[in-house]
């Protein structure tokens, strides 16, 4: 059948969202709403030292005084969240942190099993260390011992605050300042947990570090905070995967991720995100307002972001790189899929400060149903960025004729020797392509999935193997029902 008006109108919703279940566990809530007491409550729950509380309070006061708590410049249309109608803290009830998997609530483990998270033996087989965040508290951390032998610290950030205060104090907020944007400010005040990674000089982290986040308790905002530091000559690859159960209310998610690469260090950060996108009429779904930024502090350092975004009702996300060190390299590889009523405004910022800095941007936006998908990217060549280079490629693929793909590049060049290249294309999956695939025996949905995977190939190739397979499947699932 043609992807005609009728068929697009009658597309099936993603009513079989695979991960739409709710785990029945007593959560310990802070009361709804946000004031200084809540910030103090969160800090006390975490056993935080005074300096951390002070940092949070400073952020909170800044946030309180913000006139605009929801930036309106993105091409997104949604009802701003009521910040006083949100729980800012929910934790599964445990008296003490579990020491091993045996101590973890079996309900939690079952949830992870349904998600197919390779915890425990499966994790060992896959060579992945998992720091699983369930709602707000990290409940299980594996491979810690093995990493510790190499001097690598991989732990919940709440633990790092207590045990490695010198590192946290030095780097937290150094890439994304407290006052950076309203969501980052909010996160700084109320962040619940997240991952902390420190790789010492000259150490190459031997395994992919991985975190799965999951939003579970009803109306709980999730405010993860992740901080990754690769010291001189270090290397680390970090994977983040996300799924959330089905809910009617919109749930706010405002994470902050900061990456710091010192001299000759390299950080690769990959995300596969498939949070609940809402139903086909746009009811429910996650608001994903994330600030991700890396700083190439040292010469010849490298930071690479790879993201496959298929979920969330609203995505507002611009993983960026500040290229401070001479000869440093920034990369951004992105696939963003929107279907039904989903909206995404996503892209990157490459801020070239040092000499001979290089950046590459490859963005693939796919839009189906009545979705809107915007690439928004900034390339800035500072006055000292002699011989800096950027190449950007932004491709949009449309499925059907009621969706939109938009490309909004911002280019600022203040150095004459810098070079910036920008290419953009927009195409549609053609009837010819679909028919050709079906004539060879592929179903209409497999045909779309095949064509879309081909479109995204350059980005998918950048993902670690086990993630690439998952991502490919996810693309197919996300676009189910996009053709009649």
């Amino acid at each position, binding site marked *: 059948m043609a992807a005609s008006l009728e068929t697009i109108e009658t597309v099936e919703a993603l009513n079989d969202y695979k991960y739409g279940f709710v785990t029945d566990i007593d959560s310990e809530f802070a009361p709804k709403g946000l004031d200084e007491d809540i910030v103090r409550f969160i800090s006390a729950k975490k056993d935080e030292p005074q300096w951390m509380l002070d940092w949070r309070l400073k952020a909170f006061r800044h946030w309180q005084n913000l006139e605009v708590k929801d930036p309106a410049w993105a091409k997104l249309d949604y009802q701003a969240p009521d910040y006083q109608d949100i729980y800012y803290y929910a934790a599964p009830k445990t008296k003490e942190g579990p020491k091993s998997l045996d101590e973890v609530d079996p309900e939690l483990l079952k949830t992870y099993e349904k998600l197919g998270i390779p915890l425990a033996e499966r994790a060992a087989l896959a060579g992945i260390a998992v720091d699983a965040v369930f709602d707000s508290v990290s409940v299980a951390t594996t491979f810690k011992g093995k990493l510790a032998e190499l001097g690598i610290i991989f732990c919940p950030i709440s633990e790092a605050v207590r045990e490695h205060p010198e590192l946290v104090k030095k780097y937290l907020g150094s890439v994304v300042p407290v006052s950076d944007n309203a969501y980052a400010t909010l996160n700084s005040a109320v962040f619940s947990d997240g991952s902390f990674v420190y790789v010492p000089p000259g150490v190459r982290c031997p395994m992919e570090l991985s975190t799965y986040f999951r939003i579970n308790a009803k109306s709980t905002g999730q405010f993860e905070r992740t901080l990754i530091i690769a010291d001189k000559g270090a290397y680390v690859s970090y994977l983040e995967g996300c799924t959330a159960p089905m809910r009617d209310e919109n749930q706010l998610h405002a994470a902050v991720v900061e990456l710091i690469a010192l001299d000759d260090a390299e950080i690769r950060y990959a995300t596969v995100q498939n949070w609940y996108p809402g139903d086909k009429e746009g009811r429910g779904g996650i608001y994903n307002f994330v600030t991700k930024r890396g700083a190439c502090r040292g010469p010849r350092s490298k930071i690479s972001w790879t993201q496959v975004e298929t979920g969330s009702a609203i995505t507002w996300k611009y993983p960026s790189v500040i290229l401070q060190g001479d000869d440093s390299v920034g990369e951004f590889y992105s696939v963003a899929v929107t279907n039904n009523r989903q909206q995404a405004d996503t892209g990157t910022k490459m801020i070239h400060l040092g000499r001979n800095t290089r950046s590459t941007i490859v963005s693939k936006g796919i839009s189906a149903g009545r979705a809107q998908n915007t690439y928004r990217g900034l390339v800035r060549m500072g006055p000292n960025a002699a011989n800096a280079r950027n190449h950007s490629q932004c491709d949009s693929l449309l499925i059907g004729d009621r969706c939109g793909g938009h490309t909004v590049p911002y280019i600022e060049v203040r150095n004459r020797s810098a070079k910036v290249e920008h290419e953009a294309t927009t195409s549609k999956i053609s*009837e010819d392509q679909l028919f050709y695939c*079906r*004539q*060879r025996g592929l179903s209409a949905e497999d045909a779309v999935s*095949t*064509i879309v995977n081909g*479109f995204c*190939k350059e980005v998918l190739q950048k993902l670690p193997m086990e993630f690439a397979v998952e991502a490919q499947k996810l693309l197919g699932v996300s676009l189910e029902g996009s053709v009649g």
Partner: protein
Amino acid sequence: MIVISNLHVLVDGKAILRGLDLTINPGEVHAIMGPNGAGKSTLSHVLAGRDGYEVTEGSISYFGKDLLAMEPEERAREGLFLAFQYPVEIPGVANATFLKAAVNAVRRHRGMAELDAMDFLKSAKAKMKALKMDQKFLQRAVNVGFSGGEKKRNEIFQMAMLEPRFAVLDETDSGLDIDALRIVSDGVNSLRGPDRSILMITHYQRLLDYVKPDIVHVLAQGRIVRSGGPELALELEEHGYGDIAQPAA
């Protein structure tokens, strides 16, 4: 056996096929010739199940099944293969990936075990050799940057891999130089067999010098106006479609 009876087809409300009858037995190679606009490509698209063609009358029986009731992919899995006049490009999708998915879709339908990567490659390489195709083809994106000849050869290669019961070759000779035509024809000839029916749709006679049909039909104004042996093609080459394309009184 494929039996097309009294087929009437509208395209954009215009009658293109007007009572076409055609029966093809297993093992037979038929050629349909005809002037431009006679409805040749319409016939191939209706057989394959493309959207936009409205069948108002008639039927197509495909080995006892109602072909017109099937989705395009069901027809393909039932062994109907269309070699496209204009093969379509699919950027980023390797030929091997595409073809393995297609082969396995067909195998699943037939209740056969799926081919794994090793078996698939072995089979593909053997067939490419026969078609004098470079193995690099497997890693190239489907039809992207292929020359006209390469695209047509790729169609025949796909046909060889999918082992259809009924192959429709739509203007497979168009855009081929003489060497490419010979290679493609050799490929088609090697695929002739007692269980396979082939329908060649062509404007020119020259393909039929290389692939000898059992029966030649002339399609004009939406129906078969004459049928005969290979000699009919030669007659057409000599006299053109002028007289013959007029429906018999």
